[in-house]
C-alpha cells in the first residue's frame, strides 16, 4: 500500500492510494459534512455536501468520490463552500415537507443537525409543498416520502449489504421517488427481507420503525460498520 502525503485545511496528513479525500479527512479529525456517504457501502457523490477546493483545480470536487493524490492541497471550509452547503440544505428543505416538530427523529436527524451546524434558521427559497404519500404497508416499518432527501443510502445498503435490492429510484429530477420492487407498496414487496438496515442508515425520518411517536426514534449509527467489519474481517467489534 503506497502512502500519499497531502495537506487538508493547512494540516499535513497521509492516506493510502485509492482512499478518498473524505475518508482521509475524517481519519484526521476533519469532518466534512455529508448526507449520502455512509461507512460500509460504496459512495455515489449524490448529495454534493462534501465538495471541497483543491488547489490548482478550477472546479470543486466531491471529497467522497475523489482519491487522494500526492501533494494535494485541500480546503474543506471556505466561505464559498459554506455558502454552497447552505444552499444545498435549503434546497432540500424547500423541496419536500420537512416538519421537524412532528417527526419521529426530531432531535436525532442528520439533516436537522446539518442545518443547525450551518446556521440555517430560515429558507430563502419558496417551499414547494409537494403532495407526497406515506407508505405504512410494511408490518414493521414506514416510509414517509415527505422526509426523503434522495441520498440513496437505503438503496445501497439493501443492494450491497443485504443483497435484496428492494429499493431504487423511479423518475428523475424533482420527480424522483424511492420505490420498492415494481413500485408496489413496501408491505407487498417480494424482495424485502424486513432486515431494517435501510431504516437504520436513513439520515432523516423518511424510513422509520412503525409505532414510534414524535421525537422517539433514535437510529443506530454504528451498526452498519459492525456488520460490514464482521463480514469482511471476521471481527465483531462495537
Amino acid at each position, binding site marked *: 500500500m503506497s502512502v500519499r502525503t497531502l495537506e487538508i485545511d493547512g494540516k499535513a496528513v497521509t492516506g493510502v492510494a485509492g482512499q478518498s479525500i473524505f475518508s482521509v479527512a475524517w481519519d484526521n479529525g476533519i469532518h466534512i459534512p455529508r448526507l449520502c456517504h455512509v461507512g460500509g457501502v460504496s459512495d455515489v457523490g449524490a448529495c454534493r455536501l462534501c465538495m471541497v477546493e483543491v488547489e490548482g483545480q478550477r472546479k470543486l470536487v466531491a471529497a467522497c468520490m475523489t482519491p487522494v493524490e500526492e501533494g494535494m492541497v485541500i480546503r474543506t471550509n471556505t466561505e464559498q463552500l459554506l455558502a454552497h452547503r447552505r444552499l444545498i440544505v435549503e434546497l432540500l428543505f424547500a423541496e419536500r415537507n420537512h416538519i421537524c*416538530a*412532528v417527526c419521529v427523529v426530531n432531535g436525532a436527524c442528520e439533516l436537522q443537525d446539518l442545518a443547525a451546524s450551518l446556521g440555517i434558521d430560515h429558507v430563502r427559497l419558496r417551499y414547494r409543498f409537494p403532495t407526497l404519500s406515506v407508505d405504512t*404497508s410494511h408490518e414493521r416499518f414506514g416510509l414517509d416520502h415527505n422526509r426523503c432527501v434522495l441520498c440513496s443510502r437505503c438503496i445501497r445498503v439493501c443492494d450491497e449489504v443485504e443483497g435484496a435490492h428492494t429499493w431504487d429510484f423511479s423518475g428523475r429530477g424533482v420527480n424522483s421517488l424511492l420505490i420498492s420492487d415494481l413500485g408496489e407498496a413496501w408491505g407487498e414487496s417480494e424482495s424485502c427481507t424486513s432486515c431494517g438496515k435501510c431504516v437504520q442508515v436513513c439520515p432523516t425520518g423518511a424510513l422509520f420503525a412503525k*409505532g414510534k*411517536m*414524535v421525537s422517539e426514534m433514535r437510529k443506530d449509527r454504528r451498526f452498519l460498520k459492525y456488520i460490514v467489519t464482521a463480514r469482511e474481517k471476521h471481527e465483531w467489534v462495537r
Partner: protein
Amino acid sequence: MAERIIINPVTRIEGHAKISIYLDDSGRVDSAQFHVVEFRGFEKFCQGRPFHEMPGLMSRICGICPVSHILASAKAGDHLLGVQVPPAAEKQRRLVNYAQLLQSHALSFFHLSAPDLLLGFDSPVEKRNVFGLAEKHPETARRGIRLRQFGQRIVELLGGKKIHPAWATPGGVLSAVSTDTRDEILACVPEAIDTLQKALSTMKSIMDTFHDEIEHIGNFPSLFLGTVSREGELEYYNGLIRIVDGEGNIVADGLDPLRYHTFLGEASEEWSFMKFPYYKPLGYPGGMYRVGPLARLNVARWAGTSLADRELREFKQRIRESVCQSFHYHMARLIEMLHAVERIEEIASDAELLDTHVCARAGQNRNEGIGSCEAPRGTLFHHYTVDDHGLIQKANLLIATAQNNLAINKAVEQTARRFVAGNTMTEGMLNRVEAAIRCYDPCLSCSTHAIGQMPLVVELKSSTGDVLSRIERG
C-alpha cells in the same frame, strides 16, 4: 335592534374572540354572542399521518393542556390497537392527568380569578389583578405559584417536558418511573394539601359577599356532562359518561364515551367558527350542556378521597341538589385540586407505578379509534378513522371549551342583561361579563404570544353603526 356593544378582547392570544351585546330600542340587552375563531387546522393536517404520531402532534394543539390531548390521543391509539395498557402505564397516565389538572386550575384560580374574588369585583382595576393580590395576600399568591409548580414538575418528571411532553403513546407510555421521581412527588404533597385547605376555608368565608354575582353571573338551568367511575365517583381517565339536569336528576347514565356520537350532536353557527355541541335527545339548542369542574362535581356522587369528599359533601349541602351558578366553577376547581393531590399521593404510593412494563405492543386491529378523558376544562374526545395501514383519514376533536360554548354565550347574555344599564358601559359591567367568561376558563387553542396584543376594546354602536362610546384597556 338599535345598538350594539362589542367587546373585542382576545385577538392574538389563544385564538380570537369577540363579544357582541345587542341592545334593543329601549337600550336593554336583547342578546349576546361570544364569537370564537378557533384554529381548526389540526383536524385537517393530520390526515395521511400514521396514528402513532398523533399524541405528539396533538400535544401541539395547546400549551395549557397538552397532556389532555396526548392522553385522549393515546387512548384513541389504544383503541385502534385493541390493547389494554399495562397497569403501570395507566397509573402514569392518571398521575400526569391529575398533575395537569392541578397546574391548570392553580393558574386559573390563583392568578386569573383570585383577584376578582379576594379583592372584590368593584375594587379599582389598577389593583384588581395578580399584583394587587400579591400586595394584599402575598402568601396566597406565593402558595398558588408553588402549587402550580408542583403540577408542572410532575408533568416534567414523567413527560420529559413541561409544555409539549410526548411520553404517552398508543399502548402505554415510553418509560418507567424511578424511585427518585416518586419520592420527589410524595415530598411535595403535604404543602399542596395545606395550600388548598387554606384556600378553601378563605373561599368559604367570603362566599356570602358574592351573593349578587352568584345569582346573576351565568345562573341558568342546563345539563351537565362528566365522567364518573362505575361507583359514581369523580373520574378523570377512564369511566362512563353521566348527564344530570339543572336539578340534579340523572338524565342519562352509564353512557360509553366510545359511543359519544350517538348522544352528542355538533351544530354550527355562521357567526362563530367554534362548534356548538349539544345533547342529541333534547335537540339544538335545548340540549345545551356544561362540562368542566362544576359539571364533574354535579354528576359525581362522591369524590372517592377523604378530604375532597368532606368538601364535596359540604359544597353539595350548601347549594343543595345541582349547582347551576357558573360562579361555583371557582369553588369546584379548589375541590378538584384537593382531590387531585390526594389521588397523586395515592398513585405515587402504589408500588405498581414503578413497574417497568409500560407499553403493550400490538399491531393495528381496528379502523376507528376513540379516546376520551377529563381535561381541566371538561370532557375531551379524540376520534380517528384510519386506513388499513394506520394512516389517519379523518380526525374529529370535541374539546371542552366548545362543549361549554352554548353555556358561555348564555352566561354572557345573562350577565349583560343584569349589569348593562342604558347606553353607557360601566367598568362593573365589563368586569362581570369577563368574569362570566372566566368561570369557564376558556382555552381557545393556542396562538402567538408576542408583544402587541390587541387591547380589550368595548364599543357602543348606534343602529346606524356610529360608535357612541368606546372603552379600551390593555
